[in-house]
């Protein structure tokens, strides 16, 4: 508990210090609870998520950094490796390939990379995975783009 708190505090300081280092990631810590973080990430360019801003919620276990943070999308996203209803993310580094060498910031970077490079062979969203696996890239892109517009872009007044 103490060590996870100390580590998270170091990450917090690092995030403050490097605030402008990665303009695609805005990582913030809940002011009253250092075990709750959230992030806004920009959809990577040249993907159907371009132009969208996606919110992630982090729940940090007490054994962090020996155990990975739990991360999910709060913003609806159509992606083979993100559960369409719960926002749960299928990414090895959040499961058995986690290591304390990762940080909350680098996890965000890994999620952006996953958005750009979906893994349709291990889908959490089977509809999305099936489109890609059957080679219907156009279908996948237009669905993903539609949800980006619906859920991840500011509503026009």
């Amino acid at each position: 508990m103490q060590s996870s708190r100390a580590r998270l505090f170091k990450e917090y300081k690092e995030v403050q210090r490097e605030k402008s280092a990665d303009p695609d990631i805005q990582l913030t810590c809940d002011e009253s609870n250092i075990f709750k973080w959230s992030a806004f990430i920009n959809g990577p360019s040249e993907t159907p998520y371009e132009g969208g801003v996606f919110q992630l919620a982090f729940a940090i276990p007490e054994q962090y950094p020996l155990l990975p943070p739990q991360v999910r999308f709060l913003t609806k996203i159509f992606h083979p490796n993100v559960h369409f209803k719960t926002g749960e993310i299928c990414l090895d580094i959040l499961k058995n390939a986690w290591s304390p060498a990762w940080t909350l910031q680098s996890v965000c970077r890994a999620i952006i990379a996953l958005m750009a490079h979906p893994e349709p062979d291990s889908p959490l969203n089977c509809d999305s995975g099936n489109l890609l696996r059957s080679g219907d890239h156009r279908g996948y892109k237009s669905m993903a783009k539609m949800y980006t517009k619906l859920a991840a872009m500011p509503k026009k007044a």
Partner: protein
Amino acid sequence: MVKNLVYFFPHLRSMQNSREGESPAAELALENKPITEYMVGPAPLEGTNFDEDWACYRDDDVIRQQDAIQAVEAEKIPLVGDKEHILALAEEFQSGSPVIQSKIKLLSEKYSNLRRTRGDGNCFFRGFMFSYLEHILDSQDGSEVDRIQSSIVQCKKALQDLGYAEFTFEDFFMLFIEQLQCVFNGHGDSYGHDELLKRSQDPSVSNYVVMFLRFVTTGEIRRRSDFYEPFILGISDSSVDQFCKTAVEPMGAESDQVQIIALSDALGVPIRVVYLDGSTTSLEVNHHDFIPTLQDEKTQSNEGSESKINQSPEPFVTLLYRPGHYDILYAK
């Protein structure tokens, strides 16, 4: 990890069978594959809403169940066990092959005792940790403590040069140095074998030391990636980076020759691994000594102790390897 538990505790297999027909999550939790692999394959039958069904069994649930199974196992085997007579091994293989039985007899001629570690994928690192710290506790070898501390400084520098943020590894390094100073009574503490065992069984200490050793190992492999690349390609068909990320840095990733060579080199500590298996090619118990290669910067900074390794290459860390697992051995 769970697959390994089944390997060591065959009764788990019956547990696995008895769960057939229960919820898919229960079955999945007992296999070692990423659960998503199970979603590949024939499309779900018409009329079943796979998405809905799946929503009931999230990864988190599966992981929680795995944790629960591991917690049950944890009570059976501590992270590091008590010292046992070497022939306690024979009981385990009573119904096993006569080859193993006779090899255990041979083993008992040279080795008196055994100390088991939990088969959680960290057994090599944990065995090394305990064996090394116990050696310092018994020998009170001040020059070895000085020597390893300067090796640790080099390891830290290597990680920094590789671009690892210091705050990601410094806590693990600090905790190991703390343990080292505790067993080295030069600092006046009354610290004995009981305390060492207690801390090695306490996950908040033990797992941090394991992670320290994993950082040291990954730093060494990456620093000398040209040297390690052919080995890694030979066993895993993955790049050095991929290997370090999946087979060295994560807790629970099992260790093989590559990790042993790298750890031994990085810390400058020779390691003896004694092999016990059912092979019948020779009725001998073979061992291999991993002797650290001299590294330029280390010989310069600490010539005395490096040459000491050359004079007496008898390793003081001895591990017993049975396919898939490492325990600690004590020479007679």
